[in-house]
């Protein structure tokens, strides 16, 4: 630890580079960081010179924990990574285990999974929309987005038994069949969504203060998106074709009719527009499937004890934030030898310094809001 005199001795003198710089800490407990993210920001006046994200405050060693859990048990832990798209995380894990076991998932289970994935995506984007508007000082949008999100949560609660960390997907299908009210509830949700979605544009998108704070802020070029490994709406906001549902389709996504949303702005506003349009695409997918849920089993027959053959397995899915990859090395036992999660939040956060360097500190919050960071996903 530095004593006081040593800090003064180390500080740059007048004329030296770095003189007059102010180092401030945003977080780890800060309302604008959506969790325990610690940013060490070097400021010159109000201009940002450098941002160092300091991670690890919510590190729970999920990857190591998974090594001692069986292939049925480890799925529930991944709900705690990116808790806003818990279903999609579970989907990735279920897919990779099914790939190893070479289990054919029933058609009904696949449709149920895609339906819940898209509902999760809408719920996640709605929470993001409210939270981002709250970052910029608007409190009302949060309630508006939570009205629709609550409807989705009720659907989840009824079928999966939980509202956030569902653990509904199991290797070979889903845990239980759909609740009898499911279709009616989803149709009610679509009606509500279509009736109320114009409020989002009226309240926030069209607002001139909001647009001035978003346009041209946090620009990242397509080349930098690729070199930083950003995925999801961050990449698509810069015009990089990166939707895993289109690039390497999994489950039944190749049979569905939906568009990959691409914007070319590369700034915060483009990322905002991508997420808003993605919600419409998710609604389009749900509308295609909700009346066409095939009859049949909801779960394939699997053995009581799952053992993956020796080898390496990888599967990536498109979560609400980007590409989530699950990599399993199996030695042939009941538990994985090694698990690695490629989480979208980590790569997206690493581009933050590049995006905002030279900008103002107020822009940092706007740019960080559109990255849609979930800290437990970054730290795992």
């Amino acid at each position: 630890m530095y004593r006081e005199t040593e800090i003064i001795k180390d500080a740059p003198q007048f004329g030296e580079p770095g003189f007059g710089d102010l180092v401030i800490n945003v977080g780890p407990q800060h309302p604008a960081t959506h969790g325990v993210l610690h940013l060490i920001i070097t400021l010159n006046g109000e201009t940002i010179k450098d941002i160092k994200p300091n991670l690890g405050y919510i590190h729970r060693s999920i990857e190591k924990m998974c090594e001692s859990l069986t292939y049925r048990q480890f799925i529930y832990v991944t709900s705690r990574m990116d808790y806003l798209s818990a279903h999609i995380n579970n989907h990735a894990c279920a897919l990779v285990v099914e790939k190893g076991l070479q289990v054919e998932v029933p058609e009904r289970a696949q449709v149920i999974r895609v339906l819940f994935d898209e509902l999760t995506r809408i719920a996640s984007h709605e929470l993001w929309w409210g939270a981002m508007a709250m970052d910029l000082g608007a409190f009302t949008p949060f309630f508006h987005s939570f009205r629709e999100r609550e409807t989705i949560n009720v659907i989840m609660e009824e079928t999966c038994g939980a509202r956030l960390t569902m653990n509904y997907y199991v290797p070979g299908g889903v845990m239980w069949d759909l609740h009898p009210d499911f279709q009616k509830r989803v149709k009610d949700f679509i009606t509500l969504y279509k009736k109320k979605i114009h409020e989002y544009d009226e309240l926030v998108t069209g607002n001139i203060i909001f647009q001035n704070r978003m346009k041209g802020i946090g620009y990242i070029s397509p080349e930098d998106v690729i070199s930083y490994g950003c995925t999801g709406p961050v990449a698509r906001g810069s015009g990089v074709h990166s939707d895993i549902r289109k690039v390497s389709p999994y489950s039944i996504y190749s049979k569905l009719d939906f568009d990959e949303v691409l914007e070319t702005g590369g700034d915060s506003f483009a990322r905002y527009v991508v997420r808003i349009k993605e919600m419409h695409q998710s609604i389009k997918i749900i509308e295609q499937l909700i009346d066409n849920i095939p009859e049949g089993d909801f779960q394939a027959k699997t053995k009581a004890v799952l053992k993956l053959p020796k080898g390496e397995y990888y599967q990536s899915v498109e979560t609400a934030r980007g590409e989530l990859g699950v990599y399993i090395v199996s030695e042939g036992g009941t538990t994985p030898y090694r698990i690695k999660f490629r989480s979208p939040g980590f790569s997206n956060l690493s581009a933050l310094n590049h995006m905002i360097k030279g900008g103002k500190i107020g822009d940092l919050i706007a740019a960080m809001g559109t990255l849609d960071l979930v800290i437990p996903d970054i730290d795992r």
Partner: protein
Amino acid sequence: MFIKDYIKDIASALKSLATGMKMTGYYFTHHKEIITEQYPDNRDTLVLAERFKGEVVMPHDENNEHACTGCTSCELACPNGSIKIITKFDVDAETGKRKKAIDTWVYHLDLCTMCGLCVEACPTNAIKMAPTFEHSVFDRNKLVKKLNEDGSKVRAGVE
């Protein structure tokens, strides 16, 4: 040109402000479309979803019998070790054979993450998830529960 852009900016700002305020006014005058939801204080009339995963319970019938054979499937399925089953040997009154049965079904609610894997694993449907949501207690020892009631035994015919 500058003046023209300046006036245009002001006009569009006022327009967007009016659009936002129009909606605020709509919700101000329509009290029935209230958005916020209250904490469920109405415990007696509150109906939670039947599948809601609140805690693990073991249903007993009117003869104080349950369906748990003590096979420890749930204990093996639990990822957190929140289930511990202590077994004993019962002597059958008619045949005189020693038979394995549960002595205590220990449930650590404080370790449980409500994943539902134990219910999924149970071969006799002896346990289920109950829709309760308020678990806070002042003493953490109260979260360690014994699910089988005193003097209960396995229902006849459950293997």
